[in-house]
């Protein structure tokens, strides 16, 4: 990477775009699959989850980036994990206090952000090598990419399972005189696996990537 001053904005926008599409954590890197499958039964928990991940990712990237020169190689992963665990605890307590219902729905998947591969991957691959600003932009891009993918997946599933998106009824239900019959399987584990599998297939088809 060049050090000249006019290359900086290009680097920043590149970092941002990488997270959104080119290296989208879910669709391209296949990271963080567990929460992706678990919380996408409806858009609302998916969105909350995405926000939590953005918060934790931002904070941990900032901290890791600031202390990157102090890290001993063999203690690196441990320090990352402890940093992440601290911020996840904060996010979890925040949700419990202000969004008790949502905290109930998400259950153990909020603390499970600690072992979400996206966050540790970004700490390792980006924040421990780059400066503060690049790390923040990277965290933001990755977090938003994650959230958007989560929301798209959740909308598909919620629409097919209940005929609604974000709890707003879109398709007229059969028992209320419409035509749509709820597809219950979509709200269950089966739906999660199938939808994500087909979505990955679609993305591969669009980008022409061969596995």
């Amino acid at each position, binding site marked *: 990477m060049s050090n000249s001053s006019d290359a900086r904005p290009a680097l920043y926008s590149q970092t941002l775009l990488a997270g959104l599409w080119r290296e989208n954590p879910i669709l391209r890197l*296949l*990271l963080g*699959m*567990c*929460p992706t*499958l*678990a919380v996408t039964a409806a858009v609302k928990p998916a969105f909350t989850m995405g926000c939590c991940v953005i918060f934790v990712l931002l904070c941990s990237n900032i901290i890791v980036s600031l202390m990157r020169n102090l890290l001993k190689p063999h203690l690196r*992963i*441990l320090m990352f*994990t*402890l940093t992440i*665990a*601290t911020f*996840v*605890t904060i996010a*979890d*307590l925040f949700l419990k206090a202000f969004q008790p219902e949502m905290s109930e729905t998400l*259950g*153990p998947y909020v*603390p*499970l952000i*600690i*072992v*979400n*591969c996206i966050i*540790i991957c970004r700490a390792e691959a980006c924040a421990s090598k780059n400066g503060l600003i690049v790390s923040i932009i990277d965290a933001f891009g990755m977090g938003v990419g994650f959230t958007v993918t989560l929301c798209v997946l959740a909308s598909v599933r919620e629409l097919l399972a209940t005929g609604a998106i974000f709890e707003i009824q879109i398709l007229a239900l059969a028992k209320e005189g419409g035509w749509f019959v709820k597809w219950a*399987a979509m709200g*269950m*584990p*089966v*739906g*999660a*696996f*199938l939808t*994500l*599998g*087909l979505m*990955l*297939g*679609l993305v*591969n*088809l669009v980008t022409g*990537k*061969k*596995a």
Partner: protein
Amino acid sequence: MDTLNILLMGFISVVLINNLVFTKFLGICPYLGVSGRIDMAFGMGMAVTFVVTLSGTLTWMIDNWILMKLGLEVTRYVCFILVIAGAVQLVEMYVRKFFPSLYDSFGIFLPLITTNCAILGLCLFLNLWMIESLLDAAVRSFGAGIGFTMAICIMAGIRENLNMADVPDCLKGAPITLITAGLLSLAFMGFAGMIR
């Protein structure tokens, strides 16, 4: 007799009905990564079983006997992750010393068990299910490992045959694995409602 009954029910429920992979979506990353060959899948399953039994029991003890007594529940996640990281380190040293060939074939996946959500997930579920006794916690942790091994071995068996199937190009690799997992989880739904 009553205790035995509870233990047996707990074991069956965590292996079949609440299978970590198919109903709780935990441990999907190694599930997609290592399920290519059945011998590696089995080795991975064994490593996970060992770590999960160890850390499940340890975290239950720490949680119930230290953290809850002292009112330090806030530090629960940090403590759990430390215990798990320590257990993984132990297993890694053991496997490297006594099974070098297995160690080579694991590659990056062994240290990655630390960030395997199945393990932390189980520790958290033990807390959520309000397990009363140490023995019950240990049996359930072991059952979770067995459930994971079973799931990953079934998948490896299917994927070995899938190599010969004519899969559309865009679905090769992870997508078809996920779809297969979906069908498997459909089958596992048949166990739901067997016991509570």
